[in-house]
């Protein structure tokens, strides 16, 4: 929440103490400055992914470094992915709940215009209007309805850990009118199976979007 002022303060304070010596923080400043300048973020390496013998995804929030989450529970359509203190629950690639993030999604359901739930979740349904019904516990907001429209922008090749994958790129535009919040989710979907290989989804209005890519898919 305090990011703007913090950044200003941090730059000012860094100017004061930037230096070198046996006990200085120069390596850390250098790392920080390099990240700010380069804009690059650390990704899970092929070796790291291969070292984990479980189904896994690489997850980043905004421009953060990518972290590894492993599949801890698969029950019907619901999959729960875990890191040390974070959890993402997905429904075929659609994030439906989060825990341990700075701001969390309490619940999400995809519904047709008639109110029936789209059980399969996953990539946005094409060719129909639909809504997302969302709870944010910290905002005391329950059952907020996001009206959504999605479009298939065409075929797109992505690369995960050096492996090229051909996907369909689906963009979903939603708006929760009651809090005047618009957001755009993106899905890179296997054209044959509908499997979501990569996605960028908003889970909370106060949090940068969560990006994930499947490093090792669950065994069917």
């Amino acid at each position, binding site marked *: 929440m305090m990011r703007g002022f913090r950044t200003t303060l941090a730059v000012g304070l860094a100017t004061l103490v930037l230096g070198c010596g046996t006990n200085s923080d120069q390596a850390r400043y250098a790392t920080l400055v390099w990240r700010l300048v380069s804009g690059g973020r650390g990704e899970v390496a092929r070796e790291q992914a291969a070292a984990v013998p479980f189904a896994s995804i690489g997850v980043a929030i905004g421009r953060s470094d990518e972290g590894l989450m492993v599949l801890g529970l698969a029950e019907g359509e619901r999959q729960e992915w875990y890191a040390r203190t974070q959890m993402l629950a997905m429904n075929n690639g659609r994030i439906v709940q989060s825990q341990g993030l700075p701001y969390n999604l309490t619940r999400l359901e995809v519904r047709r215009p008639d109110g029936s739930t789209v059980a399969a979740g996953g990539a946005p349904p094409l060719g129909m209007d639909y809504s997302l019904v969302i709870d944010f516990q910290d905002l005391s907001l329950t059952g907020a309805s996001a009206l959504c429209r999605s479009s298939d922008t065409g075929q797109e090749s992505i690369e995960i850990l050096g492996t090229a994958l051909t996907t369909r790129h689906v963009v979903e535009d939603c708006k929760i009118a009651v809090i005047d919040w618009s957001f755009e989710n993106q899905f890179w979907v296997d054209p044959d199976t509908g499997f979501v290989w990569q996605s960028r989804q908003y889970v909370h209005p*106060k949090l940068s979007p969560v990006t994930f890519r499947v490093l090792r898919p669950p065994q069917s």
Partner: protein
Amino acid sequence: MLHRHRNGRLLRCLVAAGASFIPLRSAVAAQDLFHLLDNNTDVPTLSQYGGVGLLDTRTARFLPEGYLAATFSIKNPDDRIGFTFQPFPWLETTFRWSNNYAIRPLAEAGQGADRSFDVKLRLTQESTYVPELAIGLQDFLGTGTYGGEYIVGSKRIGRFDFSLGLGWGRLGSRGALRNPFGGTREGDFGEGGKFTWDYFQGPDLGVFGGFEYQPRIHNLRIQVEYNSDSYKEELRASGKDYGFPLNIGLSYRPWSGVDFGLSLMHGNQIGVRLALFTDLAADNTINRIDPLPQIRPREEAPASASAPGAAPPMAAPTLEPLPAPTPDASMELMRQALASQRLIVRGLTVGGNRIELGIVNEAYLRDTEAVSRAARALAATAPPNIEEFHIVTIANGIAVGDILIRRSALERLADQQSSSAELLRASEIVPPPSSIAQYSDPNYRRFNWSIHPEMRQSVFDPDNPFFVGIGIGAEQSLEIGRGLWLGASESILLYDTFSDIDRESNSTLPHVRSDIAHYLKDGKYGFDSLRAAYYFKLGRDVYGRVTAGYLEEMYAGLGAEVLYRPFQQRWALGLNIWGIQQRDFNRLFDLREYKTVTGHATFYYETPWDISLRFHVGRYLARDYGYTFEAVRTFRTGVQVGAWFTITNVSAEQFGEGSFDKGIRIRIPMEWALPFSSRSVFDLALRPIQRDGGQMLLGNTQLYDMTQSSSYGETIRQWDSVFRP
């Protein structure tokens, strides 16, 4: 009377306007969520005085606990810079520097500038029918330029937040009502800086109020207020009338922690306001680029053996079995793991199932974090038969902390089979040993140095709020024996504005501090300290040091400090005595004639509410006798905000402006502001004015702070945050 009649009409208009908005409540949806995502919805607008309010008046709203705000307000007839801190949910404190251009022509040079303190206390919290009520004192310790008191209530109705208040003193100068308390107010405040005890007195009582409205535009507020301050002193001094009572303004919060304000003040003046605010209590550890390493149970492969080679993605990895490490290899692995955590190993030995580790923490603000990282490093690399990690933290060659951590308990925490509280129960925090003779690692580095940018500043001088110098600084230290140190720090200023300081000290006391401008102007290159120090322990709970040399920027000499800090107790007692001679302004080797002996007995107490108290009694630099009381609130983030005052046998007339020494202190750790760990801190002491009475030698009490981070209380306080899976 005509004047009052006009004001009464305006007041009635305001009340009528307010009343006309009430029916709108039903038109506004009960669950109006449009502004739910606005920036800092829990932070009210800050007034031009610094504290929470509308424009030139206060409301009964408060910042959330732990917030610090800086406001910069530019308008005629006065510019203001305010620092507001919320130490408790019910208490708001403000320090303000202001320059009143209307009063200035009549005053002596510089006297238009004013430094003042405000406090505001919450009386009730808002409920369905009860407004939030607050009572406040404005400029209650300054020269009285802005002196006034008020009681104000605030009530939110839909998108409107209404406030209505009663004002005394300056805030009653428009005189809407007769003051039921009567009495007279002191017109001459002398040197200022004292309680005048004529609060809520005077012939008149003012009525002020207004509202803040949230339009359907994100982060925007519209403010309208009726001010009970008629600015009559400004009218008398300058002949210009700033008395128009109605002010209107816009406040926009484009980012979290930043407010811009634009207002039409006094009927014909444009006001601009910038407010920056932040939560000093907000935990920043989640954003660190150097998080605590994971606790590795024994059955897992050591960290250095985790690279499985270039196994293909989406395929099962293969881990090559590692050969069992030899004892020497184990020691090397442990050293590497500790070094990777930026810990300095003073001693590392293995005996039976226990590791004896002595560490020097120069990387982390909290010693408890250093201990946690050491335990994690050892858990990942120690041979499997090791069960106990005995970790002693060492500062300046003496032991200040001693913890025994059981590895199996740590592993249970890693497996989430136990909690940090259970780990604490399984661990032993004991008094640090009297001697560190057993910790003598041959690789221990005895010489340290650093070069860093240097900034020297003189803030809130009556003529200018900010004089600054920027340059390069350097520090060196060498441990020539156990606890025996040589140290130096130097600086060169490359750019400064100190030559613009033209105020000479008018102090009738020895100029022990008030010649600061000469040190800033003439000491553009020099050394702050050049000294030898010996640290020692006289017993389990008694710490001591002897220091000689150029002790600080203004003094050289010889002295000693002893601290009795009983283990597991909230209190401690310290004694220090120094024979000193004043240094020359050039900050080189020359000395001035002034010599004295100074020293204090200090009682320390850590309250259960994260507030540290210090009470010093003794002889000060100007040979005056007295006492100093300090209270400091410490947040879990390490940020400290506190205040002090000193009363000595120097009279208010002798002391000069301000009557006695007092101020506020803000200490911001770098690791709170930046996303990585650091021991660096930004320390700022703000005084209304620098005088000579009640001044201490800098660094006269060092042992308490040196032992604080590893103390029992601080270890318990920080435990949960550093021992987590």
